[in-house]
């Protein structure tokens, strides 16, 4: 029974002498509101044929587990040990040196010791040792093993969905143990029992059915682009219609649907449209698709299989439309999947050709087999070859810093291309401190479904994002940085809120929004505002268009 704490208890939390304190294995997780996301709704699991759909609340005592749930988990575990060397090796070789302990943004922001990456993995390892190793079987707790109980399962669920699979810990691990890999496979196990979070399950079902995470139907998707076309016309005086689902185009463009539906991603989307229109007259032949309208892969937060099922749409659509290659928009985990999984999942895409920029003739040799090019590298190549006329002064009101997305930096190494593009379109660029960018970048705090756009776990998102926000605050105070650029749709969706809480006065933008602002079109009207409808520098007094 809950009792009201006495004042002294409130002030100081625990007085127990550490010598006799229970170890972590004996302390079940306390599932706190504000930290977890709502459980998956049955309809969303049913739609994609996931097992054990049910109406459940993580705070309930009873999680409505099937009777043989332990067997299901144990078999699932064994199956994954047999299929993934990564899991087997990572279960066996950790020496618990603690190098990763303080590298996790969730640990840094919360101080909850079970958020140390090593411990997150130990939650699974303890069960693994008890079930699959001699030492654990013989020695039990003394061998580091523990039984799989409902409390342990709940603890798994609570902490596995508090990981944003950002891989920062993996950079510092002397053996390269990747908590993201452990989390991904651990989540697969929880999914065997229908225990997902709805902020993953619903987008998965939606992406599967309509092609995008909000469940927007094709005509509404087109409506949105039409709406942007009107907006762009207001600003530039030019009508920049886009092609959709057009057969015979040379290139298929796929971007995260967040760009189409949520601010400030929408401005980035307008940026893509303007760039494509600009290039049309000099030979770009590109189409969008409503069927493959989600670059982001929410399946990746569920299981490898679901990731593959959703990813399949891209090649399928490329084949149907008969394009030569695929161009991908600004997105984080989308690009980890495209870079490290896509060809293996659904390749080889023999029906495509090796990507060549139709405008510069540059061969994208690093995309030879996947046949998928990152829009930012595409643009970087254009700028390098002087294909774009840019007026950087239009971005002079911006003091920009760049947030490396976890997945593009640690799952791809895409570090210089975006910086090159930003520096080419903006005059004021400042880096955050080195231990918070590039391969050491801090997560936005909401990646990989650990809270993307879910209001219910706002506290988790705010504290998980604290290390990132703290570094932004530093450049905000030091250099007056007022714009945080990123190349990830989740970032664009969640960073504005993070900034609002921790560093008011800093806005968030995609890279192509700034490109489009700087892009000088033939025959455009005199631009007085940027894509957000805010006056351009020096135009503050002009009549609003």
């Amino acid at each position, binding site marked *: 029974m809950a009792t009201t704490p006495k004042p002294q208890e409130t002030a100081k939390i625990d007085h127990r002498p550490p010598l006799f304190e229970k170890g972590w294995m004996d302390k079940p997780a306390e599932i706190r509101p*504000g930290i977890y996301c709502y459980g998956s709704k049955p309809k969303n699991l049913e739609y994609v044929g996931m097992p054990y759909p049910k109406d459940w609340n993580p705070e309930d005592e009873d999680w409505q587990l099937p009777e043989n749930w332990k067997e299901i988990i144990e078999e699932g575990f064994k199956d994954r040990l047999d299929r993934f060397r990564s899991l087997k090796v990572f279960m066996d070789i950790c020496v618990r040196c603690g190098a990763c302990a303080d590298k996790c943004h969730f640990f840094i922001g919360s101080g909850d010791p079970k958020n140390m990456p090593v411990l997150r993995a130990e939650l699974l390892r303890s069960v693994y040792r008890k079930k699959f190793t001699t030492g654990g079987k013989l020695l039990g707790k003394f061998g580091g093993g523990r039984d799989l109980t409902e409390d342990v399962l709940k603890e798994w669920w609570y902490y596995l969905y508090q990981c944003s699979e950002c891989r920062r810990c993996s950079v510092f691990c002397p053996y390269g143990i990747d908590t993201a890999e452990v989390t991904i496979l651990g989540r697969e196990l929880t999914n065997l029992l229908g225990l997902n979070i709805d902020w993953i399950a619903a987008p998965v079902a939606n992406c599967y059915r309509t092609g995008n995470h909000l469940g927007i139907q094709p005509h509404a998707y087109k409506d*949105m682009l039409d709406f942007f076309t009107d907006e762009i016309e207001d600003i530039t005086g030019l009508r920049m219609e886009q092609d959709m689902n057009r057969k015979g185009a040379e290139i298929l463009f796929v971007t995260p649907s967040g760009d189409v539906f949520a601010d400030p991603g929408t401005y980035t989307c307008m940026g893509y449209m303007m760039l494509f229109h600009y290039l049309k007259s000099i030979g770009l032949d590109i189409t969008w698709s409503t069927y493959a309208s989600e670059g982001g892969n929410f399946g990746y937060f569920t299981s490898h299989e679901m990731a593959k099922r959703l990813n399949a749409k891209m090649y399928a659509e490329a084949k149907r439309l008969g394009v030569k290659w695929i161009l991908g928009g600004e997105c984080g985990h989308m690009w980890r999947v495209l870079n490290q999984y896509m060809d293996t999942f659904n390749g080889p895409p023999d029906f495509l050709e090796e990507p060549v920029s139709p405008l510069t003739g540059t061969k994208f040799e690093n995309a030879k087999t996947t046949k998928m090019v990152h829009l930012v590298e595409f643009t970087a190549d254009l700028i390098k070859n002087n294909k774009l006329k840019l007026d950087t002064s239009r971005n002079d009101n911006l003091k920009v810093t760049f947030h490396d997305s976890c997945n593009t930096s640690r799952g791809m190494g895409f570090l210089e291309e975006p910086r090159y593009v930003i520096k080419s379109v903006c005059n004021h660029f400042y880096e955050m401190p080195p231990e918070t960018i590039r391969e050491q970048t801090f997560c936005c705090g909401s990646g990989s479904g650990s809270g993307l756009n879910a209001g219910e776990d706002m*506290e988790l998102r705010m504290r998980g994002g604290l290390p990132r926000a703290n570094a932004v605050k530093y450049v905000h105070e030091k250099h007056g940085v007022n714009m945080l650029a990123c190349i990830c749709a989740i970032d664009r969706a969640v960073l504005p809120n993070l900034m609002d809480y921790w560093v008011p006065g800093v806005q968030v933008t995609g890279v192509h929004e700034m490109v489009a602002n700087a892009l000088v079109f033939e025959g455009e009207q005199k631009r007085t505002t940027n894509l957000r409808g805010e006056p351009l520098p020096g135009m503050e007094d002009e009549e609003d268009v």
Partner: protein
Amino acid sequence: MSLKNLLSEKRSSIIKRWQDAIVSSYPKDSRGFLKRTKSQFANPVGCIITKEIETLYDEVIKGDNADKISSCLDTIIRIRAVQDFTPSQAVAFVLQLKDIIREELGNNHSPDMDAFDKQVDEILLMAFDVYSKCRQKIYEIRVREVKNQVGKLLERANLIVEIPEQAPGLRDDNAKTSL
């Protein structure tokens, strides 16, 4: 010696205790990290607490700049408002200053001390305001996020119409009615 002088004299040891007290409100297993890791980027929570408590203490002794006190409180409490603390736990560190000072200076009853206690109480009330403001912000963000997701979408799909910004005569009148 006046209380103010005493407090200045014992400044560093009081601050040290106060910092320790606030750090010990965190899980024991992470306290070492909060205290030891000195980089402001690797350990924002610990570093902010250390720095802001120091500033806060100086401002409390000066006692004439409510804005500065409030901004220190904001920096500390903004973090605690999203961590695993109950509201009372999140602001309790203010009250702890009373105990710490008595431990340092001895339990002498004096009018000065009474005045100081009263000041701490006032700061506690400020802390309560700050905490509420932070929580308010969280809920504001929550609501805005939901609104942005659905509202913008409907609007752009031309499914709803909004009352235009300058609907003549309408808005002002409405604003005046109390219902």
